């Protein structure tokens, strides 16, 4: 069976990941894959074939117009599988495209492969407590979970431009502010110390970052600390609606262990927890735990780590 697979993401950093999945699905089925991009999103890096969609206005500022462009082009070229990066905008683009094309659609899929004429894969459900196996008949649209495949290396193929004509958008982007960027990349971090509600004041985060820096690690947090308290930028938020991490060591400090948080740390090699509450669910999800006050345990850990170095 020869399948035609498309890889698309409005986000340049995600596009190469999607391309990598498209490439392996197409290769296994003896098919071909095309990387589709937008004219204002920078050059496409990977791809055996590259197509850049153009319109009168920048497409990247409107998921609505992007979906219009993608669906129109898909009606023309009829790909069997349209893979889209499952970003927040990507989910709108995938949804709208699937409805326009009358195709089934699933989001947040990882480990996608083709078998028995179906596009199959997995996705986390019930806040990561369960893994669902999904199977979609072709043709379909699938949004792939970000950060689950490595990027495909760049290819020298020249991109073909495709003018889609005017594509009106009813939503207008008035202003865009980049979120405060720190220096840490949690996705790639080997060691993470993450803070939760057990930390009582913003200033006390110093204890957590001191431990992190003594271990050469990065600082993360659970949702309340970034979303509700605003103590740390959103990029530090680990969990279902934040970043998914896979360090060698994850130390949860004062984190109760809500499923939504645990969903983001499952792939850590070793998990440790410090919490005053012996019945905190976090201990269930940890290899090692200390029942105790982080204000006493963290300084003691620091002392111990420094002593071991001498």
């Amino acid at each position, binding site marked *: 069976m020869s399948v035609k697979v498309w890889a698309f993401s409005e986000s340049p950093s995600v596009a190469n990941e999607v391309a990598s999945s498209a490439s392996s699905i197409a290769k296994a089925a003896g098919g071909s894959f095309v990387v589709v991009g937008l004219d204002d999103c920078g050059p496409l890096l990977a791809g055996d074939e590259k197509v850049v969609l153009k319109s009168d206005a920048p497409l990247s500022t409107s998921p609505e117009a992007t979906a219009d462009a993608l669906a129109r082009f898909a009606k023309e070229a009829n790909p069997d599988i349209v893979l889209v990066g499952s970003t927040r905008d990507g989910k709108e683009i995938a949804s709208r495209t699937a409805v326009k094309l009358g195709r089934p659609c699933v989001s947040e899929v990882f480990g996608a492969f083709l078998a028995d004429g179906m596009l199959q894969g997995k996705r986390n459900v019930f806040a990561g407590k369960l893994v669902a196996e*999904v199977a979609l008949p072709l043709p379909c649209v699938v949004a792939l979970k970000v950060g689950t495949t490595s990027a495909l290396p760049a290819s020298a193929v020249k991109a073909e431009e495709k003018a889609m004509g005017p594509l009106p958008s009813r939503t207008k982007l008035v202003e865009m502010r980049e979120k405060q960027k720190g220096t840490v990349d949690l996705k790639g971090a080997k060691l993470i110390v993450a803070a939760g509600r057990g930390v009582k004041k913003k200033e006390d985060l110093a204890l957590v970052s001191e431990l992190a820096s003594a271990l050469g690690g990065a600082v993360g947090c659970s949702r309340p600390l970034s979303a509700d308290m605003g103590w740390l930028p959103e990029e530090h938020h680990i969990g279902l609606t934040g970043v998914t991490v896979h360090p060698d060591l994850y130390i949860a400090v004062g984190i109760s262990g809500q499923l939504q948080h645990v969903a983001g740390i499952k792939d850590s090699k070793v998990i440790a927890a410090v919490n005053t509450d012996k019945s905190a669910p976090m201990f269930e999800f940890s290899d090692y735990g200390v029942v105790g006050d982080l204000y006493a345990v963290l300084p003691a850990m620091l002392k111990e780590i420094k002593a071991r170095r001498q």
Partner: protein
Amino acid sequence: MKIAVCVKHVVDETELKVDPGGNPQLKGAATKMSAFDKNAVEEALRLKAARQGEVVIVTVGTPEAKKTMKEALAMGADRGVLVSADPMAMDARRTAELLAAALKKGGPYDMVLCSEGSSDMYSGLVPPMVGEILGLPYVGYARKIEVSGQAAKVERALEDSVELVEAPTPLVVSVVSEINEPRYPTLIQIMQAGKKPMEELSPDALIPDAPKSASLVRGMKAQAMARKRVVFEGPPEETAKKLVEALAAEGVLPR
């Protein structure tokens, strides 16, 4: 301002039990209103308070979903519409089609509010699909909504940026949980919720001769989370030492 809020009655993920074979015990499991849906209901009530109008709760669910409906009505919504069908037995597109058909029937609405995703499946597909089916603009992941005249100004929380977008009403908006703090209904509100009107619609009447829809999920299994679960208790100096030693023995501490 007439606002519809799409909600979902779900199995409570925190209470969900798994048998030794890793199979979830969905039958008879504890259920609740999907976590972030309360934020969508709260936002609708907030918008209504400032501009008058009506808040209508719309859901696709089994008879048990009336529990969630009542909770939303107790929070302050005016009436409910239940499309009697099991969302677990269909895909996101069919759920969106049913919601859209119910919204069309009871509309027009100035705004359709949803949460960013349900706490069971967390697909995030239904809200934009409803927008697409109804031919409406969709603004996802709202953390602030302002309506003036025929336009909505929405602050969107994206992965690396915050966007301010404008869109004309009517439109579909999905919210993130930091948009507000959902209210708790009072005892009187809870008692009165049962008296508020709740309409039941049959999916066949909404979409006659619809092609068969099935869930795209083949099965669900528990995540393997084999952790050692060693817990140290005692004075901080001792437990800290034990923890550091254990982590060093695992080879995960820098030398």
